[in-house]
C-alpha cells in the first residue's frame, strides 16, 4: 500500500508536510483533495511552489479522489493524501472503504472550536463526525510530525 498517510491539515501543503513527513517517508506524491483548490489554477500554482522536485503534486476534487484512491494505493511511490477539513475527509472516507486511518495534523482555531490539543481545535459536531468514522472502523488520531506520538481520538475528544 503506497498511501502512507491520510492527513487533515488546514494549511494544506506546507513545511510540516513537505519536510516533516516528506523527508522521512520519502514521499513520491502528495494528493491534495480540496474542491476549491481543484477549481483554482492560481492556487494550484501557489501550492506547487512549495513542492520540491521528486514529489508530484496531484490536485483532486472529492469526487476525483474517491475514484482515484485505489490507483494511489497501487502507486509504487509513497504517497500522502491531504485534506483541509473534517467535512472533506468524512466525505472522502464515506466513499473509500479502504481508507482505514486518518491523521489530524493541524486543525486550528475558529469561532466555535475548542482546543483539544495544541494543534487540534474541533467543534462538538466535528468530533461527532470523527467518532462516527471510528465506529465504522477507521482509526483516527492526531500527530503533527512523525517524531510525535500519535494520540488516539478517544484521548483528546472527551
Amino acid at each position, binding site marked *: 500500500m503506497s498511501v502512507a498517510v491520510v492527513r487533515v491539515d*488546514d*494549511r*494544506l*501543503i*506546507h*513545511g510540516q508536510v*513537505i519536510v516533516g513527513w516528506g523527508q522521512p517517508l520519502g514521499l513520491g506524491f502528495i494528493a491534495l483533495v480540496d474542491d476549491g483548490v481543484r477549481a483554482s489554477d*492560481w492556487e494550484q500554482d*501557489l*501550492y*506547487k*511552489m*512549495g*513542492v520540491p522536485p521528486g514529489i508530484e503534486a496531484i490536485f483532486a476534487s472529492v469526487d476525483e479522489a474517491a475514484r482515484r484512491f485505489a490507483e494511489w494505493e497501487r502507486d509504487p511511490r509513497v504517497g500522502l493524501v491531504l485534506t483541509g477539513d473534517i467535512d472533506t475527509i468524512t466525505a472522502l472516507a464515506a466513499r473509500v472503504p479502504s481508507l482505514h486511518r486518518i491523521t489530524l495534523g*493541524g*486543525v*486550528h*482555531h*475558529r469561532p466555535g472550536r475548542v482546543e483539544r490539543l495544541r494543534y487540534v481545535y474541533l467543534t462538538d459536531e466535528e468530533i461527532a463526525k470523527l467518532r462516527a468514522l471510528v465506529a465504522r472502523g477507521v482509526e483516527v488520531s492526531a500527530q503533527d510530525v512523525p517524531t510525535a506520538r500519535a494520540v488516539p481520538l478517544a484521548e483528546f475528544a472527551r
Partner: protein
Amino acid sequence: MSEPLKGVVVSHAGLAQSLVAAAEAISGVTGALVPVTNDGCDGGRLQARIGEAIGGGPAVVFVDLPGGSCLTGAVRTARGQGHGVAVVTGVNLAMLLDFVFHREGAPAEAAERAREAGGRAIRIAPA
C-alpha cells in the same frame, strides 16, 4: 510625495520578529517593518494577521519559504487588497536592510530590488 512602502515579514515561529529586531538594530530605522508569525493560525487567521499588518497602504510582504502556509497566506491577502502589494520569498536580513532605505516607488519594483539585494548576500566566504 507618495507614501513610503511598508514591509511585512511573515514567517514560521519567531523568525520574523527576530529579523525585524535585527534590521531595526542595524539600520536604526523603526516602524518600516512589521513581523507576523503563523504560530497557531489556520489560513484565515493568518490572512487576517497579514492584512492587519499591511494596513491600508502599498506594501511588500517578505515570506520565509518559497511555498507553504506563510506564502499561501501572503499571496491570498495580496490578491484581496485593493492597493499594490508585492510578495517576495526567501527573506533574509540583507534584503530587509536594503528595503528599509528604499521604500519609494511601486511595490513590484521594490520587491525586485529586494530579491536582488537578498540574492547578492548569499556567497561562499573565502576560507
